[in-house]
């Protein structure tokens, strides 16, 4: 497999990014340091290249019917220029991907999907589209995406546009506005638990927008931010990462995403299994835990209770905003209570931990 570069690849080198491979893409894991960038996003702002994300346009008279079948959340509740987060499931209830649905018009939607899943999602959508009068277009290669995240995001973007941004609420978007003279789709969304925007633009404009945002933001403390802190930021607010807390083997109910599964909206993929899991309770659940003894849990380390295997770590790391070693893991439902003592097997040794409530971090006023 060839490793792909985003339109901002050269820019990352110019800003001192340390490039790693992630999901088939060359992207910066950090520029100045993960803790430093993490802190900037929590207290000021950070700028991320998320151009690797995939985008699919759904057009046609059956667009809504198709999406209602495809995803678990209720797309009919969306208003124009509003956004919905939703899992997308297989018929057996496992998760194909989690995505954002942007309603541009009654017969026109934009789906934003995970980079590593673009091909798989595209095939799955094609397969499901057969009985609907819809047109799907994969515009991933023609779309760049920059995420500006942190409490100063609005202040920074406001310096580059005349449009009043305070009117743009969380999970709403402006389909076409000018930022620094470039046409973009501006979305009040993100993956960090902070206020912020995701800016969709032409690949040709990405470098100019990046440089201009950095220029006006740097004096306020804006830092370029890499994938490393993107992961620690989303982890602290317990947003799932596909391939970790969600997978073909983990349903949205098991992942604790029941509020994004609307069982009464009509027929959809995975409905039967998800209904059963919601009614009887899933046999496994994603929980949060804190290390009690010294050690860092990492993905795929076994979780034990009194010497028996009860689950596995899905994400584990040091949480910079809490200064603690925390984890998420999927474990048997009888052990999910807050305060439950568990052990994490780290390099052959059992290290004690305990279940704590999620999310680990909440932004003030939220």
């Amino acid at each position, binding site marked *: 497999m060839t490793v792909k570069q985003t339109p901002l690849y050269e820019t990352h080198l110019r800003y001192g990014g340390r490039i790693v491979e992630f999901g088939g893409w060359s992207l910066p*894991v950090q520029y100045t340091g993960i803790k430093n960038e993490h802190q900037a996003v929590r207290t000021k702002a950070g700028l991320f290249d998320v151009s690797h994300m995939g985008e699919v346009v759904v057009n046609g008279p059956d667009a809504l019917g198709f999406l209602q079948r495809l995803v678990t959340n209720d797309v009919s509740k969306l208003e124009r220029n509003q956004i919905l987060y939703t899992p997308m499931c297989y018929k057996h209830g496992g998760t194909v991907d989690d995505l954002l649905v942007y309603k541009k018009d009654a017969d026109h939607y934009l789906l934003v999907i995970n980079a590593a899943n673009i091909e798989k999602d595209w095939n799955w959508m094609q397969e499901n589209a057969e009985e609907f009068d819809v047109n799907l277009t994969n515009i991933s290669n023609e779309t760049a995406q920059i995420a500006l995240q942190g409490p100063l995001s609005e202040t920074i973007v406001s310096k580059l546009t005349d449009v009043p941004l305070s009117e743009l609420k969380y999970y709403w978007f402006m389909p076409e506005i000018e930022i620094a003279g470039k046409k973009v789709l501006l979305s009040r969304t993100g993956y960090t638990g902070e206020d912020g925007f995701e800016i969709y633009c032409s690949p040709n404009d990405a470098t100019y927008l990046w440089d201009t945002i950095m220029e006006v933001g740097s004096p306020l403390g804006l830092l370029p931010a890499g994938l490393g802190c993107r992961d620690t930021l989303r982890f602290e607010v317990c947003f799932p990462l596909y391939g970790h807390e969600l997978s073909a083997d983990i349903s949205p109910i098991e992942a604790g995403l029941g509020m994004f599964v609307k069982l009464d909206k009509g027929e959809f993929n995975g409905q039967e299994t998800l209904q059963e899991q919601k009614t009887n309770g899933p046999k496994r659940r994603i929980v949060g835990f804190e290390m009690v003894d010294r050690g860092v849990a990492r993905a795929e380390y076994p979780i034990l209770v009194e010497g028996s295997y009860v689950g596995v770590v899905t994400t584990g790391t*040091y949480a910079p905003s809490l200064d603690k*070693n925390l984890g998420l893991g999927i474990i048997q439902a009888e052990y999910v209570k807050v305060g439950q003592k568990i052990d994490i097997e780290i390099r052959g040794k059992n290290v004690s931990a305990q279940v704590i409530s999620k999310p680990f971090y909440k932004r003030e006023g939220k």
Partner: protein
Amino acid sequence: MNIPKELKYSKDHEWVKVEGNVAIIGVTDFAQSQLGDVVFVELPDELSTVKVGDGFSVIESVKAVSDIYAPVSGKIVRVNQALTDGPDLINQEPYGEGWIVAIEISDSSELNDLLDSDAYAQLAAEGGH
């Protein structure tokens, strides 16, 4: 990149400072910069013995887990307990307060297999492999 002349280096990015029959060991500036923010160090027991090439410690950064290999064989006579509460000493002072262990050398001929600063600088310049 800071690569002090007076130290010896392993290909695994440890530095070795020989004081009599004791080797003080840490990781290089290059290694700490590659690791990123160190958040946890698993230290060996004092008085345990290690053979050259044994993994005797683990350093974890936010993203990465890295084994530290013994550059010489011998008995671990001192362990830098300050790393328990201050793992970031490895980032701040890789050649100073961020040292990891001191090993009483059992076979001084192993020191001949280590790199000098010029050879290590070349290894680091090539990306560390």
